[in-house]
């Protein structure tokens, strides 16, 4: 489909491993194009954002036009247009988290990461993108951890029940090259490694699975029930299936 347009050379950006991974993604699906979203995550794992080379790479793997890939890449919030920092810090500022302090957390981090008295903007990076300690900051929509709000994420790992002070400490630690442990999630790596996992490649990181099953908030109801001896009604021992319905 791209025959009428000039090809783009990206061989210096994406190596054979990446091409092999792209093929592995395609192999997961009945139809190749389903691989596009994971493949854009893969591209971000290489470059820290979706570049024009990344768009060309995906287009060629899937026999799409660059416009078709751009249409998809620009639709989703998680595909970044500019190179991200070593870490991506996402602060939930949706209504509930905001009311609980999310807006204050975001304001605090903007101010801390800004320069010359100018707060850092949404999706802007403090430091040289990709360099150790560089941080891209964004405000995020609801992250599905409302019972643990206000929440933020570093490279999509959860840091629950935050305050402006805790968040500031966390970001300072990240800038200093430390990797504080998420409340729920794997030991921190960096944005690109997280993107590789989002593309479905977890090799060598089996230990990442560990951590608590759930936060205390998550199991509040279950724990309370256990405490009070409340249960669901007992299942019968011999629940049978209904008879096979007659064909209409």
């Amino acid at each position, binding site marked *: *489909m791209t025959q009428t*347009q000039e090809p783009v050379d990206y061989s210096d950006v994406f190596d054979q491993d990446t091409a092999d991974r792209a093929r592995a993604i395609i192999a997961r699906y009945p139809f190749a194009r389903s691989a596009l979203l994971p493949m854009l995550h893969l591209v971000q794992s290489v470059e820290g954002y979706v570049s*024009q080379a990344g768009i060309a790479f995906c287009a060629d793997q899937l026999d799409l036009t660059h416009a*078709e890939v751009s249409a998809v890449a*620009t*639709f989703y919030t998680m595909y970044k247009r500019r190179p991200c920092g070593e870490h991506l810090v996402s602060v939930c500022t949706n209504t509930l988290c905001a009311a609980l302090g999310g807006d204050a957390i975001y304001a605090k981090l903007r101010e801390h990461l800004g320069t010359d008295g100018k707060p850092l903007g949404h999706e802007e990076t403090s430091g040289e993108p990709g360099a150790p300690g560089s941080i891209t900051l964004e405000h995020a929509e609801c992250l599905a951890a409302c019972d643990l709000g206000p929440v933020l994420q570093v490279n999509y790992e959860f840091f629950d029940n935050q305050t402006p002070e805790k968040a500031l400490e966390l970001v300072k630690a990240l800038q200093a090259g430390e990797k504080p442990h998420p409340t729920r999630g794997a030991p921190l790596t960096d944005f690109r490694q997280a993107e590789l996992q989002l593309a479905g490649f977890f090799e060598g990181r089996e230990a990442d699975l560990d951590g608590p099953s759930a936060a205390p908030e998550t199991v509040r109801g279950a724990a309370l029930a256990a405490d009070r001896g409340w249960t669901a009604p007992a299942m019968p021992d011999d629940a049978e299936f209904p008879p096979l319905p007659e064909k209409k």
Partner: protein
Amino acid sequence: MTIAPDKSTELVVPEGHVKLVIDGIEVVAPKGELLIRTAERLGIVVPRFCDHPLLDPAGACRQCLVEVEMGGRPMPKPQASCTMTVADGMVVKTQLTSPVADKAQQGVMELLLINHPLDCPICDKGGECPLQNQALKHGRADSRFHEHKRTFPKPIPISTQVLLDRERCVLCQRCTRFSAQIAGDPFIELLERGSQQQIGVAEEKPFQSYFSGNTIQICPVGALTSAQYRFRARPFDLVSTPSVCEHCSSGCAERTDWRRGKVQRKLAGDDPEVNEEWICDKGRFAFRYATADDRITRPLVRDKATGELRESSWTEALQVAADGLAKARDGKGVGVLAGGRLTVEDAYAYSKFARIALRTNDVDFRARAHSAEELEFLTSAVLGVTPDNGGVTFKGIEAAPAALLVAFEPEEEAPIVFLRLRKAARAKKTKVFHLGQFTSPAVEKTFGTLLACVPGGEPAALNALAEHAADVVEELGKPGSVILVGERAAEVPGLFSAVSALAKSTGAKVAWIPRRAGERGALEAGLLPTLLPGGRLVSDDAARAEVEQAWGVDAGTLPAKPGRDTTGILTAAASGGLDALVVGGVDPFDLPDPALAERALDFVGFVVSLELRHSAVTAHADVVLPIAPAVEKAGSYLNWEGRHRPFGTTLEGTGALPDGRVLDTLAVEMDADLFTQTPASAAADFERLGRGVVRAQAPTVSAPLLPQPKDGQVVLATWRRLLDNGSMQDDEPHLAGTARPVVAKLSEATAARLGVELGGEVTVSTDRGAVTLPVESADLPDGVVWLPGNSGAATVRRTLVAGHGSVVTVTAVLDAGSAEEITSPGGNA
């Protein structure tokens, strides 16, 4: 007598139909019809932006909301009438009868306008803008929106010919749907999301589609504008004249908009039988050739003293021409090369002129590769075939179970045929097989199957079809299947014979789809050495007598001996076998051997050229007679279907004369009466002549052995592209910017064998010349190189004097660095 109307006039609901009520009117509609269309049939226009009858429904703009009741229960929300189909018992209330629908439409209109700039006074669309019209008709008088409007930098070019103004866009997606669905060129897409959503192209990837101009036409606002037309006119200052495209053989309906004697733009006409509502960008944008600086407006005569052409009176020029031609006629004779772009009326005038003024059958319209086999094929399979007598049609293609394309690259040679093939294939109705050399964009976009062969190997491939591709034969055997053969078949000996045999064995119908608008008409007009007008053989005594009688000339006036074809005429002229040539719109560089043409024009004693603009022919002419371009005359084309495509004069009173009129006057000077003073009289004369009956046998030429290329040699595959060096695209830089990249193509294996690096450059040469251009990979058969026929430096005829199936030499062009490496050791020698 009057009978009181029967009060119980129940509407009859035929099979496959339903009955519903719209705004209180009972109506019967076919199942599956969209409400918006049913309403329209009743004369109820529901406002809309995204809806387009030829695009898949989107339901995006929400402007066409109506109230719907089903089974006596109103649906809770207003429904988009562009996406909802009719159902039995449905009760529909549009804005005319429903306050809810009216409010919904007003609400959507207000929302569409909050971010729309108020730049109507400088917008090209102003005056013909659906948004403007509907806002004035249905919108509020003032705005409640006091906030900040969305702004974008404007406008941005998305190709050299299309400009995008995102502020004006209402995101109806007509353009993206057209490009993705109709053209198959998804280079323009929705980008971003939500209120930032916008139309756009990928970075540095312009909207390179042969059909992009249609998006400008169907844009319901001024978001997409034409670089060529921008700021040139207001719609209400233009005069619109229905016209027919003069470029390819599809004969598309067009509308030409002009002002003060100048064409400002061309739009697609609506003709469901032919082009539906689409035209290609060549048909839309390529019209300034007619006003190029080198346009000839006065007759020219070669001055005996200076040897230069000088302007003359018509009287003088016609006198000199008549004298020279009469002398030549009475000597060794005159050959006529009329070109493939004439109207039927002008072609008829040429044909009659040759026969009764010049008394010769040395006449041929084929200004391209041609063969006797082709002539036999045209005579046996094409002559006289029309939509009325069972010929292949656009709609026939759409309904065909299968289409086999032979030596025919539809997107390049007949773009509207390509669109029909894609439409048919997309609807999963038609299987498309391409007998060609590589997977061209058209193969992909028609979801086609490539039957690849080496150039020249096409007849063998067809003959072996039953053996190697039984499924193709089976598909072609289904009633309605078609074989479409292109003009390139004339370059492959045995191919027309193989096509004829395959058609006979499978029962598939055959259509011949030449590249030029006038070729099919010229065939019927007898602009060929073996045919008289109206489908009569030169060699048929009775037919000649019939024509002589109709033309009122003496029995025996018409020569009985078949004449020479284009190459024969040129060969004779170059070697003293003819004393004069009459040449119409022929570019010598389109001919199989341009050098032969050059020699013939140089050698022959007398040349009369009927031309629009200066050319390699006028450079040799003794008399040049200016003729009118299509836009300045009336006439008709016969499209490839054999369908009559009449058009009137768009620009009146320019003083330019049609060929038929010039020839008529010239004939008078030579004591012959053509009765072709006007296109109408020519048409009437042709009509009076009626049709003859030709019973011709299909050709049975067997394919010769294929040439065996030596080391470093390969076989050339080549065809012309839609946008190339053609002189009718002159003066259109915006159009030229969307031509496809000029590259040679090789398979990876062949490139490796030849030591060619793909992505680098190659030189393709013959003993006549060489061209150098970038090379890229394609799935060509091994031992084959592909070149565009006449694009950029790739002037295959002119420079290489080669064609499809020629043997050529391919050598790698070493880049400067490596060339130095090789030469430096000997550099000091």
